[in-house]
């Protein structure tokens, strides 16, 4: 019975190939738009997520507070209140903190042989590697021993390796920063762009003690990067760090903090939620076009019911029940919508692949969205086919047989 109804529907649609195709076009474009838009939205979201993950998971950055001198405020990070002991204390005393490392940074000219390159020199502790979740490609990272002895050793980012050594092995070579020789002990795995678009691999890492003594001649630290033990304990870590630093810096209850804590997961959340809003908006716009496509189906089905009034009369005269007629037209509408849905899915996947290839837009095609789009197009067929089918089923057979 079902198979036969399906065959009747397919034949009716084949009879008016161009009209059926034009009717389906609404659904094809609607579904195609949904698939492509969601693929682009999801792609953007995934990119942002991976950029944020590359900063290190569960990361907090502690910066010194502002300093007011003679009415002049230095802005965030201007004070010299953070000490390397603060980082050690966090790791030892706070259960929510996994790793903490001082981080000092300055732009410097790095020389190797007859090549030179301006890059970001970072003074860090061994824990920095764990906080940022950064793999060593060759050699080793900075040791505890390097920190204690303020050793003149360096670990190079991939971009610096490329610029200063090309294809040569940089391990055990000597580079010079402000004329001080450093021995290269390791290279870092490439990490790519940050979410702000800066090249994270364009860096040289040295022990923070060496940075303090040799390059900057300071005793405080510019910032401390901290990782919480897990993503859901970031908030707890932030509270515990605040309490610990207030106590260590002897800040009375009525005074403001002399530091600020930046929470990377907050930034991550803001970025992903804006991408989420984008994806939802694109999805809504695309869904509207799907509904418009459904109205097109309804329109053509109404025309078709009128055109085939006599056919309906004949079918009724030979014994078709109302529900047989209803089913026939409903199946026709659903077949049209579902075929449009399948073609739309192909169009959507195809066009997002093209955008990915030509415009380098990141895309992510989710099978569940494809499934939902297909089912939704079928549902559009049922919804917009229902009224015309009911109209057909309720025709008076005598009137229908007389219809010219």
């Amino acid at each position, binding site marked *: 019975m079902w198979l036969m109804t399906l065959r009747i529907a397919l034949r009716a649609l084949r009879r008016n190939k161009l009209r059926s195709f034009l009717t389906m076009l609404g659904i094809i474009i609607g579904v195609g738009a949904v698939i492509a838009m969601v693929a682009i939205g999801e792609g953007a979201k995934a990119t942002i997520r991976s950029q944020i993950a590359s900063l290190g998971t569960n990361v907090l950055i502690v910066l010194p507070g502002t300093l007011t001198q003679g009415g002049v405020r230095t802005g965030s990070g201007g004070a010299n209140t953070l000490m390397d002991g603060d980082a050690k204390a966090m790791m030892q005393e706070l259960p929510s903190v996994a790793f903490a490392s001082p981080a000092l940074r300055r732009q410097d000219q790095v020389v190797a042989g007859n090549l030179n390159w301006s890059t970001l020199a970072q003074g860090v502790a061994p824990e920095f590697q764990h906080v940022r979740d950064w793999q060593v490609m060759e050699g080793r990272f900075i040791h505890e021993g390097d920190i204690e002895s303020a050793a003149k050793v360096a670990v190079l980012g991939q971009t610096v390796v490329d610029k200063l050594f090309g294809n040569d092995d940089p391990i055990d070579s000597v580079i010079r920063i402000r004329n001080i020789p450093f021995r290269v002990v390791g290279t870092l795995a490439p990490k790519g762009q940050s979410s702000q678009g800066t090249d994270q691999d364009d860096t040289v890492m040295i022990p923070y003690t060496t940075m303090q003594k040799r390059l900057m001649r300071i005793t405080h630290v510019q910032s401390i990067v901290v990782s919480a033990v897990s993503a859901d304990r970031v908030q707890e870590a932030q509270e515990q760090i605040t309490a610990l630093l207030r106590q260590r810096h002897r800040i009375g209850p009525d005074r403001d903090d002399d530091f600020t804590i930046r929470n990377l997961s907050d930034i991550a959340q803001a970025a992903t939620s804006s991408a989420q809003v984008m994806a939802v908006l694109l999805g809504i716009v695309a869904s509207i076009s799907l509904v418009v496509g459904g109205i097109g189906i309804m329109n053509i089905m109404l025309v078709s019911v009128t055109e085939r009034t006599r056919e309906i009369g*004949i079918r009724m005269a030979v*014994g078709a*029940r109302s529900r047989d007629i209803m089913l026939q037209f409903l199946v026709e509408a659903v077949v049209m919508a579902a075929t449009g849905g399948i073609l739309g899915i192909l169009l959507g996947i195809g066009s997002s692949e093209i955008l990915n290839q030509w415009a380098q837009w990141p895309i992510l095609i989710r099978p569940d969205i494809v499934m939902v789009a297909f089912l939704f197009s079928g549902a559009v067929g049922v919804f917009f086919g229902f009224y015309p089918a009911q109209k057909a089923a309720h025709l008076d057979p005598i009137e229908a*047989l007389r219809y010219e």
Partner: protein
Amino acid sequence: MSELIRVRDLHKTYVMGDVEVPALRGINLNIERGEFVAVMGASGSGKSTFMNILGCLDRSTSGSYLLEGQEVGSLSPDEWAHIRNHKIGFVFQGFNLLSRTSALENVELPMMYNGLQSQERHRRALETLSLVGLEERTHHMPNQLSGGQQQRVAIARALVNRPSLFLADEPTGNLDSTTSAEIMALVQRLNAEQGITIVLVTHEFDIAAYANRQIHFKDGRLISDHPAEDRVKSRQQ
């Protein structure tokens, strides 16, 4: 012979706005199995309305209609569809075949609504098409067939579910006289050989002459009911 149709005091009134138009004003009629009845009358005499009621396409306003002893006036639309499918075969003046559908598939159409397997449908459709002499034309579309051939397809479609009542509404109205004679010969043969009960509406006396009983309608009443005089005896093909 047993009784197939019993109609008692049948009334049908159409309501057009505020005006009531009586189409049938108390019809009483019995038709036995195997009869060949010609229903005659001018347009507006109520004969078409009567046919629609006999064919379970239209409902009477009052009165009773028993088909094979079953009161059909009070049945639901789905039960009517079932009766039209199983017990009644229609033939119309305008043939009413599905366009762009082969003769075979047109004949299969009534069986699509009674759950027969496709092989059985196919077999019966072919058998019925050869009964009306169209075994050579099974895959032709209606527009590739002559008027007479189209009406033969329609007759095959009406017969394929082996109905107890065959209703023909001016079946020769669109045909020339030679073809009309052929079709009427076929109808007469079906009545004689298959014993099918036939009710045929016409306003032409020479067509009515093929029947063995003629009834006349005028202004919604039955005014005469008699056996056909000088009945045409067509050559048995």
